[in-house]
């Protein structure tokens, strides 16, 4: 036994597997104890309740008779509405999961794309032009210490409670830290010598910025994006919890209030898994396109 003694892949896999099994085991014991006390408990659902919850989130009631629901596994379907008229009208009934997934990840993609785009431009320019850095840094440094959820009321006034609110919250929350990390990547990873050398090879200012600065710090940008995913989800879910009428945050709030925790656990697993997959995808992109960067 020594500090940082390397382990092989098999040991790593087995330990990871044991860790997940331990979590499931711990949950099972807690759920079992809760159900011994109260067999109708929904706060720590047992596995059959969990499956029911998942089915509730993934299915759509295609019956118009609400007393006798007919739930099917569908993303959504067009339900005909006739209020005693000859005219047929339809409304789109979507499963919670589909509607929430679409709403939350739509907001996530819009907010994150805008934040990444602006952060890359501002961070690279600030790292390359000290005057711009002097102008921008005091504001971003201050902004990075203000939790965006604390400034929600200001956002309500500035952008309202529509879809733009989510983009604004993500931008406000992620832009300062992402810009700062890109700025530091530029200043630390790009030496003056390299810039001078690029000029001696006939590069224009734009080529220095793209062919050297951007391409060299690209793996670091990906690393910063990976770190930003967690905070983005926090801001997004918190905002949805407060103002949305669809989305993961909204459903989590409603179902928690009803103490219907099965869909809540299901959503938490989904959020964790999707975050993990996103992180893994970014890491894979980095490994594929920036093999020179190493692990």
């Amino acid at each position, binding site marked *: 036994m020594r500090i940082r003694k390397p382990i092989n892949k098999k040991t790593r896999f087995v330990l990871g597997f044991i860790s997940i099994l331990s979590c499931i085991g711990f949950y099972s014991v807690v759920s079992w104890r809760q159900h011994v006390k109260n067999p109708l408990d929904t706060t720590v659902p047992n596995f059959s309740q969990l499956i029911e919850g998942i089915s509730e989130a993934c299915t759509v009631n295609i019956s118009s008779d609400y007393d006798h629901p007919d739930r099917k596994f569908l993303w959504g379907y067009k339900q005909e509405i006739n209020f005693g008229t000859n005219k047929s009208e339809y409304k789109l009934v979507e499963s919670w999961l589909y509607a929430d997934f679409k709403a939350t990840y739509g907001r996530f993609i819009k907010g994150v794309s805008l934040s990444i785009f602006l952060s890359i431009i501002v961070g690279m320019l600030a790292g390359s032009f000290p005057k711009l850095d002097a102008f921008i840094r005091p504001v971003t440094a201050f902004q990075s210490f203000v939790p965006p959820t604390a400034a929600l009321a200001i956002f309500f006034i500035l952008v309202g409670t529509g879809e733009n609110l989510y983009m604004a919250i993500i931008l406000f929350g992620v832009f300062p830290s992402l810009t700062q990390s890109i700025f530091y990547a530029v200043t630390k990873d790009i030496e003056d010598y390299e810039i001078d050398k690029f000029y001696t090879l006939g590069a224009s200012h734009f080529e220095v910025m793209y062919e050297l600065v951007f*391409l060299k710090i690209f793996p670091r940008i990906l690393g910063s994006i990976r770190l930003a995913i967690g905070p983005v989800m926090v801001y997004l879910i918190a905002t949805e919890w407060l103002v949305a009428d669809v989305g993961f945050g909204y459903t989590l709030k409603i179902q928690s209030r009803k103490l219907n925790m099965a869909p809540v656990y299901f959503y938490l697993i989904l959020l964790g898994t999707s975050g993990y997959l996103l992180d893994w995808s970014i890491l894979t992109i980095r490994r594929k396109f920036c093999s020179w960067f190493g692990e």
Partner: protein
Amino acid sequence: MTRTVLEIKNVKHNFGSNYVLNDVNLKISEGQIISLVGPSGCGKSTLLKAILGTHPPNSGQILVDNEIHNSPTRNVGIVYQHYHLPPFLTARENVALGLKLDETSTPYRIFKFFEWRKLKKQHLEKATAFLEKVNLSKYADLYPHELSGGMRQRVAIAQAIIMRPSVLLLDEPFGALDEQTRENLQEMLLSFYQENIEAEKEGDVPPYTILIVTHELTEALIVGSRVVGLSQFHSDGINGASIVFDEQAPIFEPGFDRNLIEFNKQKDRLRHSVFDPNVNQHRDKFISYWKDYQHEQEQKEILK
């Protein structure tokens, strides 16, 4: 006389009241391989940066191809001690990088994509030829982190010479390398000198004009066709460093025996005039390159 490619005229450089360079004058003709030596902190790097154009002098002029040079351009190449190769490009792509940046623009590469692809292929072929010149063709597809220090420096040199700059600056290029690798690279520089001589014999323009900054006297004398010493140790040294030594070097063509007697004499002279802090002579005392050159030319005329 061959064409002057670099002329340093009355260059002075100061940081506040502290003068680093004092009235530096130097003229370099095409085809020369010049070793610039000097004690630590004498201003070699400042002079190099001034020639490169990143830190223009406070007074005086630096002319490259008879034009004032005050910003880095493709006419003055640079190879640093620590290579500074873009890590995301293979050795071949690194060597072809200058051709891409110099001969094409970003809009060209986007809007004339297929023409650019053809041109890129030509660039890569040319880069392969230059890698062969520096004995690295086997490693063309490796990234810099997969190469040894000596190999990286060869790539850096190939990357610079493919541009055919008017002057190539080598800033302590072999400082971070082991003795054997250093000797191999010195041989490579001598082969460049050989190419210059052959080009001159055939009446062509010699392809390489190189200014190599080093603190190794032996290296300076081995690779340079001319040795220049920059030092603050002279009668006017209080006002900064100046050129205090400028002589032909006993350069050796690759494979030829070395005249060690002449070599050691010159080394002693260089050590005395450039590195000895007790020397208080006039800075022109050991400057004889152009006089010797003139004399040599006259002798040649007489022999004709």
